[in-house]
């Protein structure tokens, strides 16, 4: 096995050289989502910013981008929460603890910690969008002194779709963070005694100070416009909103062109964007 340091590559220092990540633990969250805990050689840390992503390569199947779901405050293995939607993601779901994958990264711009330091943080996650947000949520939970009030809103289509079920319970019990959740609907076969309704329904009842609050948002493409509208109605200024976006991505490093959104490259300029940067970009669809 190759030595671990990310800065050392055997082959011409190529940026395309993955390092070996070993899956050390897998936790099933829903029918379609699993959490993968991945260890890098010699136990080094990924050393990422919350909100950044890695390119994960499954030998024989292909490569895909995934947001890092764990916080850099946690040393050692990092975590990815992956939804099985296609080729690579299905294959990852078939892997077992002990299997090796290739890791490139971390890539992209994460959440601007300097900019949000000292602010009240409002996390708004829809579905699999919780994965990237969890890195910064846990960052804030680990360093509560660096931030003001913490609030998390989480919406899913149905109860069985909730990610990180155990952790959600902890958040709900936490006195450090105000955690609220909703589901779009409750099928007869499932139990639920919380709120129902789309995620935007959680915003109007919230009490927060628009002058000191920063919203960090991630979810399916359709969600952004409605959430932003609701936030604006609460008086939150546009420059207090951060979004994590997702696009097709092949190289992860600004060349392949697939993730381009007008002149921006999601892999270089994002995936986390300051809302004013993308507000007027038609292709951002926000």
């Amino acid at each position, binding site marked *: 096995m190759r030595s671990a340091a990310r800065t050392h590559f055997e082959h011409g220092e190529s940026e395309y050289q993955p390092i070996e990540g070993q899956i050390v633990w897998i936790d099933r969250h829903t029918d379609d989502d699993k959490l993968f805990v991945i260890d890098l050689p010699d136990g080094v840390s990924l050393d990422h910013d919350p909100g950044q992503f890695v390119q994960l390569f499954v030998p*024989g*199947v*292909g490569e895909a981008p995934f947001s890092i779901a764990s916080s850099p405050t946690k040393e050692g293995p990092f975590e990815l929460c992956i939804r*099985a*939607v*296609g*080729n*690579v993601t*299905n*294959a990852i779901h*078939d892997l077992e603890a002990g299997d090796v994958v290739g890791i490139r990264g971390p890539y992209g711009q994460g959440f601007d910690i300097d900019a949000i330091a000292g602010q009240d943080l409002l996390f708004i996650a829809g579905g699999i969008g919780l994965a990237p947000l969890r890195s910064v949520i846990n960052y804030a939970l680990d360093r509560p002194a660096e931030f003001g009030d913490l609030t998390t809103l989480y919406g899913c289509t149905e109860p069985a779709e909730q990610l990180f079920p155990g952790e959600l319970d902890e958040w709900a019990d936490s006195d450090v963070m105000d955690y609220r959740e909703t589901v779009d609907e409750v099928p007869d076969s499932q139990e639920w005694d919380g709120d129902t309704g789309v995620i935007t329904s959680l915003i109007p009842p919230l009490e927060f100070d628009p002058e000191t609050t920063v919203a960090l948002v991630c979810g399916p493409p359709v969600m952004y416009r409605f959430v932003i509208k609701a936030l604006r109605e609460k008086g939150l200024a546009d420059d207090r909103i951060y979004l994590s976006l997702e696009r097709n991505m092949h190289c992860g490093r600004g060349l392949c062109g697939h993730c381009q959104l007008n002149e921006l490259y999601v892999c270089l300029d994002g995936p986390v964007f300051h809302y004013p940067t993308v507000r007027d970009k038609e292709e951002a669809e926000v």
Partner: protein
Amino acid sequence: MSDASAPSVSDGRRPRVAFFDFTGCEGDQLQVINLEDRLLDLVEVVEVVSFREAMTEHGDDYEIAFVEGGVATAHDERRLTRIRENADIVVALGSCAAFAGINALRNDQEFETVKERVYGEDSDSITSYPIARPIDDVIEVDYEIPGCPIDREEFVGAVTALVNGAEPSIPNYPVCVECKFEENTCAFERGETCLGPITRGGCSATCVSAGTHCWGCRGMVDDPNEGAYTDVLEDHGLTTEEIIEEYQLYWNWQRDSRAVADGGNR
């Protein structure tokens, strides 16, 4: 074509595969045999349990069924249904299986006339379906490998994908892309016409590279701009009738399906 829930084989065991032929020229199976010594490598990674063109043994226990040829009779339909029941993954092999291919050339001819032309006075005893159909008109198909015949590399790629628990990827870009890769002189520049701009790629534009033009054998891309393309052909001097003839050669079924999707009748 492929969706997230499409099944795959990935539990590490050598998957069992079977080949079946329906109405067609058996060119796709021949392409498999034409892998020559790579066929021996292939049987290292899969276990062939049925391949009538090349072997006597036959088993009904298989995960992947490769089906060549289209559906012409009720008997074909029954046989296919059984294959679907036995297989986890059904792959349409070649254009006849995938979208009726050249077989559908007769679909807009009057069936009585068709029979008459071929069998004369004996035509009454012919019991085939009045039109040629692809297999997905009868059973659910997981993947399609188009081509008349299939491209050997693409076939090997699809098999190795399935064996690795991945999905075969069949391009949705047109033949033009690979034709430009090859630096062929464009048929239009030579005063000919070509169906490459809206035909599904993946064949390395082999016909253009061999000095002719694309006949459309891999079927249309998912969302062809047929209207604009018809204009292009008109600009290059083709009459409406000639354009329809070009489209008929391989695309009769697909064009009918698109028309049906737009509210028409087959």
